[in-house]
């Protein structure tokens, strides 16, 4: 796994490197996403550890205020856009075709391009540290803090350009996934037979397709404000700082569901298999996911109660925010109902799924609290909100991703991760996570504001801050144990077999890891749990034909070239027009080559 992106600079094994650079195989691209996302997860984790180390004791001196601002901004941006989203996209890439019974996604080369553009966006954002000018206005980048007067260095330009580029990558992959799920399903795989994970993927794709353009416009306007003298968000000629908040959160709130729905999907796959009974209330959980997708566009202003929206908007957004808690609650009961009466196997994946339900429920409940404007007004910008988002994003999204990693690792590599060490690692993560983030509820209620780089000793915040910092080091041990587990497992022979868990969905009907063409014979789907149906009705696996006449799209270097063109356009937007022009030329060349390249 580690060779995926790390060895690009070395030439001793050029053919392998070239294979990864030109691959259009959704499984290889999925692995690229996973390794990249995990690497950025580690970078974001280091930023978090530095932040907590600074806050361990009153009047900490590890970081100065400027660097602290850069670190909390980059921690959020890295974790949201470069870690959780790519790790989600990694599983999307790997399992969409396997789940729906297709040979690849609808647009294999576009898929490769999405990855290279995402990597470009990540490099642009992260490279800002090399210039000592990382974005420092918070991930929300509220005006007028982002004005040239208050943020004179290039940090926020790295922010606008990096996010536009990363957003372009997400848009392209979402278009690709939406078309794939609509159009590439195996015979018999109707929409209401799709695995729940596919439904969540589908909802996420549309959330991104419809919300990314809004943030792109806001980022363009911010870029114009900072570079071309407009005043969209600053009072100069009558601009409106609140407009930024609206545009940002019209994207930002659907984005929250973009982060959590994939993990909800993973848990919905893991629990039925580990409980050895079908998912409880399939239709309800699918409709709940779709409802979250729709309502997700109608709740953004609950981030903005304290801006003085007026009474009626507060009522409306308060009601819609409480409403979105209902489908979320429905899902929790679906998962509990799935486990109830089941013959549950307590694997590490099960541990993480149950951990997800418990911690996400805590985060969900503290979220619904803020549907009430008076409560929200008390908690706004306090550590209570930090506690809430981390219960949702770490307790929710990350726990789900780890559940998926343990569940699907045998499919992706042919090897089962070590269960004992996996469970020990789970307890480190679970305890560390709660020790880090639960005290933040108390800190917030005791009045500790977010985003302060230090605090005095006589405010009564010492104890819980110290506990939270101990918690983060326990978390680090949990992450290191996981990495060690992966490393040791990859050295062992691939003995997991095709279907170690007795899975219900189509990915378990092919070899581990799957061949490039996924299925020797495209499966026919007769039920929501196709493999269990075939098992219970004694329908044998289709025989492998003597000769496979399967044509897969050949590798192509044009996605990489187009990705480089887009990277150059981005770099040019931060430096000089000449580089942008060069980027446009490279991109146009790549589009021509792409269009004329034979794929048949």
């Amino acid at each position, binding site marked *: 796994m580690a060779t995926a992106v790390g060895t690009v600079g070395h030439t001793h094994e050029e053919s392998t490197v070239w294979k990864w650079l030109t691959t259009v195989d959704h499984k290889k691209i999925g692995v690229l996403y996973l390794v990249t996302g995990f690497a950025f997860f580690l970078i974001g984790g280091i930023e978090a550890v530095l932040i907590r180390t600074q806050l361990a004791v009153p009047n900490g001196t590890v970081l100065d205020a400027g660097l602290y601002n850069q670190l909390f901004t980059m921690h959020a941006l890295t974790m949201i856009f470069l870690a959780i989203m790519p790790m989600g996209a990694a599983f999307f890439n790997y399992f969409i075709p396997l789940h729906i019974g297709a040979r690849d996604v609808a647009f294999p080369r576009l898929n490769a391009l999405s990855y290279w553009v995402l990597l470009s966006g990540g490099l642009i954002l992260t490279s800002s540290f090399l210039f000592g000018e990382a974005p420092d206005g918070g991930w929300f980048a509220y005006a007028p803090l982002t004005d040239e007067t208050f943020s004179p260095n290039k940090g926020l330009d790295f922010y606008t350009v990096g996010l536009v580029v990363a957003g372009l990558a997400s848009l392209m992959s979402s278009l690709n996934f939406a078309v794939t799920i609509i159009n590439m399903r195996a015979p018999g795989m109707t929409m209401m037979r799709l695995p729940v994970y596919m439904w969540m993927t589908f909802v996420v794709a549309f959330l991104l397709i419809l919300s990314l353009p809004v943030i792109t416009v806001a980022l363009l306007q911010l870029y114009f404000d900072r570079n071309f003298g407009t005043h969209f968000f600053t009072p100069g000629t009558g601009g409106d700082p609140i407009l930024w908040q609206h545009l940002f959160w019209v994207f930002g709130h659907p984005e929250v569901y973009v982060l959590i729905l994939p993990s909800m999907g993973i848990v919905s796959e893991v629990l039925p298999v580990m409980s050895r009974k079908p998912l409880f209330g399939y239709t309800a959980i699918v409709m709940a996911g779709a409802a979250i997708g729709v309502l997700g566009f109608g709740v953004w202003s609950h981030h903005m109660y304290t801006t003085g929206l007026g009474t009626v908007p507060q009522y409306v957004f308060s009601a819609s925010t409480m409403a979105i808690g209902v489908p979320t609650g429905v899902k929790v009961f679906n998962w509990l109902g799935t486990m109830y009466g089941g013959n549950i196997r307590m694997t590490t994946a099960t541990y993480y799924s149950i951990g997800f339900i418990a911690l996400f429920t805590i985060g969900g409940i503290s979220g619904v609290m803020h549907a009430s404007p008076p409560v929200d007004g008390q908690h706004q910008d306090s550590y209570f909100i930090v506690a809430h988002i981390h219960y949702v994003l770490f307790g929710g999204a990350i726990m789900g991703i780890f559940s998926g990693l343990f569940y699907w690792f045998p499919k992706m590599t042919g090897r089962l991760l070590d269960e004992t060490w996996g469970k020990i690692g789970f307890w480190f993560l679970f305890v560390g996570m709660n020790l880090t983030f639960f005290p933040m509820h108390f800190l917030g209620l005791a009045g500790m504001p977010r985003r302060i780089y230090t605090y005095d000793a006589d405010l009564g915040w010492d104890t819980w801050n110290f506990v939270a910092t101990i918690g983060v080091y326990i978390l680090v041990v949990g992450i290191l144990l996981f990495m060690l587990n992966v490393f040791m497992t990859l050295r062992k022979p691939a003995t997991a077999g095709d279907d170690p868990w007795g899975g219900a969905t189509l990915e378990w009907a092919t070899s581990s890891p799957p061949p490039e063409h996924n299925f020797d014979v495209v499966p026919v789907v007769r039920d929501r749990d196709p493999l269990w149906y075939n098992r219970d009705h004694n329908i044998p696996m289709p025989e492998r034909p003597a000769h496979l006449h399967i*044509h897969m799209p050949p590798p192509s270097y044009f996605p990489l070239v187009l990705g480089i063109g887009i990277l150059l356009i981005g770099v040019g937007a931060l430096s000089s027009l000449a580089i942008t022009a060069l980027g446009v030329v490279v991109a146009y060349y790549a589009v021509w080559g792409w269009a004329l390249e034979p794929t048949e």
Partner: protein
Amino acid sequence: MAAAHAETQHHTTTGIDNRKLLMWIFLASECLFFGSLISTYLIFRGDSIVGPLPADLLDIPLTSTSTFVLLMSSLTMVLAVFGAQHNRLGLMKGMLLATIVLGLVFLGFQVYEFRHFAHLGLNLGTNQFGASFYLLTGIHGTHVGVGVLYLASLLVASARRNGLGKEAALHVDIAGLYWHFVDIVWIVIFTLIYLIP
């Protein structure tokens, strides 16, 4: 930008070609993109502290002319798709060329308009009208420009020995979807900025 296709067989679950479906969903995304820009313009309507104001600058007869040009380009685009679908390649190429020329004429009008407004003192930083007007119409113009490049690429490719290949009709059809969308957006922009005072 003809995108890749996973398999040589053209069977899809819905029967719609993947590339055409991609364009439709992409246009849904574009609706939100232009929706945000248009909202910004409407929010800032009347918020300009200093002039020049829209009433001082907007020349409705002139822009009506350029709007007519762009609308006619939709007609020629339809004829180009018709030509491609009925294997009348001469018609297709001629109408593609006509669409490109009409698109360029529209862009010419826009360049003239921008220069004229700048000459009268409206710049990006002058007031809220300047900022939101230039960004909205400028990005629309960029879309027209990309469309011209897209159609020109198709026209050049169709001059090759095997033309646009056996899927010529599909390629032109998808380009047409994009072109008509950009046209429709202009009708909304023209109505909101120019016609409704």
